[in-house]
């Protein structure tokens, strides 16, 4: 955090980053669809505040910080005045001092306590290390401890009673601290500050839970007579103040102007070249990313690559290791970093990165959060991360305070990527997304009312957040877990409710990956429950640091996968099916040729088999079956159904209609994600009858096929009743309120999808509009692209709007 150590702008005439940027622009001009240069910014400083404790002051000076950035000073003033604040400034702008300084001051002067919450344990450890450095520099004598699942039992009492700063995570607060608040009485009585860093990661289900945990925290603080000030930090999102206010339940002041200096930033939007114009097939983004990374590493620049999946991390790592780490005697230049690696392995990689030993790191979103890995020069994104906010957060990983940095966003063939890359202004001018939470989601709220009732009895007119929860208390009394006595509601069950509530709403129990090569038994990785079915099936190639392991046996109940080293020249990719059943219509909109509904659905996801794909050529070299339990979910959805008569009259056969529905679903899914400002994975899509009797997928021949619940293929014409629907569902158990906005914007979604398909340059359909089709489709007698357009047009209320959106197609329709 020194202000002086780095070179000053303009000092070196030929900066290697500028040189690389110029070379890429010159050599690959046709691939670059947009660019942006953010010029270097000088810092805005303020002197250390007058009211700052002398000890803290000298600690800062000794650490090379004789003054503060303006946002740090502003945060100091607001927090000291008792305002809740949310600080939204870029990566590496010295955010942590915004909270560390007022917290340390209060600890030094009044023995006041602070609680820090980070979304992950790794970040907690980083934070304690940072506090310790400042603490030692000033000999402040403050005690900062982590309190999480790893804290040994005999150390816990010391943390509770002696810690000035307790660093924990929302899960631990929820299960380990609040239900035992009397043990923390002294801590809560003196609690002056609550720090919530990485606030933007508390979105969706997790965020809705965390907002309720905060309600419980405030309730407990009130009991002990304290009213802590909240200091929140967030990456750039559209609604930091709104989200912070939902978390704090009170007015929050937003600090959004960074006073930190930053070096010049260059951003290139890169579209891989078209290699098959007929099919609209472009070179893979992977090939472009490795090319750019090779240039960067050869120039001696430190770079980071973000990939969208763990699998892609491993594939990219292998390709780059094949180039740069051929000599096993030399230390590795290329490293992979992702969830699933053991903590010690990740700490070692982080350390190597800080030391500069690694030239290129390939990561999933795991490195998006504030894990300290030092500064890098080049950041390459393999595919659009799905949101504007995440894109900037990742690009922020490259950039030193006083030197230029380069970011390259390489588009994949996914529709969203292609939309972004062809409309560079959309991204470059876009405001980042809203982080949505729904703390009033009934089941989540009910969970936390139960937990809160266990912690302290409810009084008749107590509010929980905004809500008067009387009806819920009565319900819990009916359930037999609460007992009403006059004005009070008391917990009476012999259970510990927080234990059965997971904030992340993923099922309990990670899988461990055990290497049994050479008769050994060594745990080499952990995989969370939700991604286990698609990565750890028997026969799967599971990769760690680009070393392939084959899964020999999977013990589903025991949550263990036994793997052994292999030399396979292929990787595996799971094939999944989604069955969907409508449980209840909430609302329905009848149109001329279609109806649109919103309601509750039951979804069963089955991982049915897998493909073996050869490295480099990416040819499909075989299939395997997977026998795993189905993954179930209840959620809400919006769905579009064509009137049976329209369907029969306008499509010569059901096969053609089916291809149209699948193509329409593909396009609608992608534009809906953009409309809702959420990520594509927040939504799911399905085509089926809504009764779980049959569902449609694109088969291995590239054509739509329908299957029954047993996964057996059915002939579309043999079905008595044929009413396919396109479903877009909220991809979280119980839903987090995404399907209502889907229903509200039903028309816009269909029109956007029409426009996207119409604007696509391909002839019959491609991955950028209606999904991949195979060459043989061209001779099937009809264009799946026009079938999809036809379906979309019937979904519109206003056919003339459809025609306007998409003139070539309107000819086909009339």
């Amino acid at each position, binding site marked *: 955090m020194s202000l002086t150590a780095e070179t000053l702008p303009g000092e070196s005439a030929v900066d290697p980053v500028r040189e690389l940027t110029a070379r890429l622009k010159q050599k690959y001009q046709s691939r670059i669809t947009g660019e942006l240069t953010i010029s270097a910014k000088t810092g805005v400083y303020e002197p250390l505040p007058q009211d700052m404790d002398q000890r803290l002051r000298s600690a800062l000076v000794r650490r090379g910080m004789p003054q503060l950035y303006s946002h740090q000073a502003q945060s100091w003033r607001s927090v000291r005045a008792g305002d809740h604040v949310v600080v939204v400034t870029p990566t590496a702008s010295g955010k942590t001092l915004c909270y560390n300084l007022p917290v340390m001051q209060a600890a030094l002067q009044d023995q006041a306590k602070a609680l820090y919450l980070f979304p992950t344990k790794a970040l907690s450890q980083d934070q304690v290390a940072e506090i310790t450095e400042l603490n030692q520099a000033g000999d402040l004598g403050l005690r900062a401890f982590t309190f999480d699942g790893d804290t040994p039992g005999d150390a816990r009492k010391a943390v509770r009673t002696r810690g000035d700063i307790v660093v924990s995570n929302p899960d631990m607060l929820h299960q380990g601290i609040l239900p035992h608040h009397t043990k923390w009485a002294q801590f809560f009585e003196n609690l002056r500050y609550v720090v919530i860093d990485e606030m933007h990661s508390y979105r969706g289900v997790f965020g809705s839970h965390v907002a309720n945990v905060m309600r419980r925290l405030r309730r407990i603080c009130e009991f002990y007579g304290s009213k802590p000030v909240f200091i929140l930090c967030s990456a750039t999102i559209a609604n930091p103040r709104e989200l912070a206010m939902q978390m704090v339940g009170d007015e929050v002041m937003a600090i959004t102007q960074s006073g930190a200096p930053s070096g010049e930033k260059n951003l290139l939007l890169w579209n891989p070249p078209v290699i098959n114009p007929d099919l609209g097939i472009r070179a893979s983004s992977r090939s472009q990313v490795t090319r750019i990374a090779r240039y960067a590493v050869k120039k001696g620049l430190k770079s980071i690559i973000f990939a969208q999946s763990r699998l892609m991390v491993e594939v990219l790592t292998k390709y780059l290791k094949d180039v740069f780490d051929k000599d096993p005697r030399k230390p590795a230049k290329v490293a992979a970093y992702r969830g699933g690696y053991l903590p010690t392995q990740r700490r070692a990689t982080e350390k190597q990165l800080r030391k500069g030993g690694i030239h290129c790191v390939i990561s999933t979103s795991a490195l998006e959060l504030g894990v300290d890995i030092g500064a890098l020069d080049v950041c390459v994104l393999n595919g659009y991360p799905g949101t504007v906010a995440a894109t900037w957060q990742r690009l922020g990983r490259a950039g030193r305070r006083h030197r230029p940095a380069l970011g390259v966003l390489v588009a994949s063939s996914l529709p969203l990527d292609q939309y972004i890359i062809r409309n560079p202004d959309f991204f470059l001018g876009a405001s980042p997304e809203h982080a949505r939470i729904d703390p009033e989601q009934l*089941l989540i709220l009910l969970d936390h009312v139960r937990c809160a009732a266990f912690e302290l009895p409810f009084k008749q007119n107590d509010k929980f957040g905004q809500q008067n929860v009387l009806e819920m208390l009565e319900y819990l*009394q*009916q359930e037999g877990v609460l*007992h009403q006595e006059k004005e009070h509601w008391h917990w009476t069950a*012999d259970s510990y409710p927080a234990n059965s509530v997971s904030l992340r709403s993923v099922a309990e129990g990670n899988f461990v990956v055990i290497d049994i090569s050479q008769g050994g038994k060594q745990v080499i990785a952990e995989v969370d429950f939700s991604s286990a079915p698609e990565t750890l099936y028997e026969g799967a190639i599971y990769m760690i640091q680009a070393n392939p392991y084959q899964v020999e046996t999977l013990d589903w109940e025991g949550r263990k996968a036994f793997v052994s080293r292999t030399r396979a020249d292929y990787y595996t990719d799971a094939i999944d099916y989604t069955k969907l059943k409508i449980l209840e219509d909430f609302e329905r909109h009848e149109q001329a040729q279609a109806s649109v509904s919103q309601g509750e659905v039951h979804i069963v996801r089955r991982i049915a088999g897998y493909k073996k794909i050869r490295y480099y050529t990416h040819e499909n070299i075989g299939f395997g079956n997977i026998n795993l339990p189905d993954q179930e979910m*209840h959620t809400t959805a919006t769905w579009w159904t064509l009137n049976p008569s329209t369907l029969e009259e306008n499509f010569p056969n059901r096969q053609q209609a089916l291809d149209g529905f699948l193509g329409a679903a593909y396009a609608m899914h992608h534009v809906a994600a953009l409309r809702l400002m959420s990520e594509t994975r927040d939504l799911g899509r399905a085509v089926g009858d809504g009764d779980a009797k049959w569902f449609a997928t694109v088969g291995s021949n590239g054509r739509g096929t329908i299957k029954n619940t047993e996964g057996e293929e059915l002939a579309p014409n043999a079905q008595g009743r044929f009413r396919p629907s396109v479903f877009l569902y909220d991809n979280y158990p119980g839903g987090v309120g995404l399907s209502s906005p889907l229903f509200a914007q039903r028309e816009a979604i269909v029109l956007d999808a029409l426009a996207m398909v119409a604007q696509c340059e391909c002839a019959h359909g491609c991955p950028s509009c209606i999904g991949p089709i195979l060459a043989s489709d061209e001779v099937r007698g009809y264009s799946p692209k026009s079938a999809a357009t036809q379906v979309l047009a019937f979904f519109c209320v206003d056919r003339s709007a459809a025609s306007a959106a998409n003139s070539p197609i309107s000819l086909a329709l009339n």
Partner: protein
Amino acid sequence: MKLASRLSTLKKQAGAVTGANSTALKANVKPSEPNKKKNNWGKDKHFAERAGGRVIAPGLIKIDRRLSLTSTHGSVVLSGIRQRVAFSVAHQDVQAEDYLFFDTETTGLAGGTGTLAFMVGLGWIEGNELCIRQYVISAFSAEEAMLEELQPIFESARCLVSFNGKSFDAPLLTTRFQLKGLIPSFESKPHLDLLHPLRRAYRQRWDNCRLISSEEKLLNFRRENDLPGAEAPEAWLSYLREGHMHKLLGIAEHNYWDIVSLVALIPALSQSYQTPEIFAADVGAIAAFYAQNGDRAKALAVLETSQSELDHKALHLLARLYRYKKCWAEAILIWRGLASDGCVQSAEHLSKYYEHVGKDYQQASLYAQCLPTGIERERRIQRVSQAMQQGRLAF
């Protein structure tokens, strides 16, 4: 749709995803009717009469009973409480009048702030009598009054006695006191938790070390028609909600016997520690207890009474005690026996003995050879052979 039915539908459909319905009580506890709140005074009075106590404040019942110390509990005469405690050095000088026996009945075993003690049993010695007092609450609102009654009693106690109270009852009551803004004094008091000495003596001998097992096996006391403590939460709730007092009376009886057993367990455990061989206790563990507390003579005496039945660990202790006393012949005998069973540690002891005390380097070398290969073994063999040569030179 009404919220309650909406929640029920949603929860059913969400199934295992949220786990929201996993904490409902057992089906046989019916939820109370919130609007049929009557004055409970009459009901409580009836309960108090049946239990032999009285209502001292709204919802708070006090039951006082006395028992002569000359009476027996199983085969134990209660006056044994006046003997010195043999199983805890820290409590040897405590007088019988200093004890406060206590045991709670709670709404659950989960711990945390949502668990409540609805019954607290206390016992103390007054003259030639054991006084047993129980507080029972019949409403959440009476808890504070109960805690206020309890506070001075705990405050003036000089030594708490419980069974598993250090881990369960005391922290639970501490939490309850804190929730009501009262200051508890459990942490600073001497606290004799009988579970731990009982476990030390019988862990290897019994299936479990619950209080009820010690009653059967040590006190020769069998409860009749006992309502197990695990049914306590349900018993209280069914009184609270429906006014059924039968089970709650059973719990009061259960709690009463818990207190009496605590009293009787002190002399019984002392006997087990004094003569473990007679009371089928783990002789080795008890001897180790004496040895740790510096009473080698007692440790030796205990072991010698049942030398033929000792396990390896106990035999090692016995040999060590002989070595301290320089009773070499006895120590060697044990070590040899163990070494012939392949015990490396004993071989090492023998090698050291022959080198330093017996000055028999042949034997010392022989036993050194038995050690596992490694630096230690080489060093020892080398040292012994050097000593052997020096010995020859001296001749």
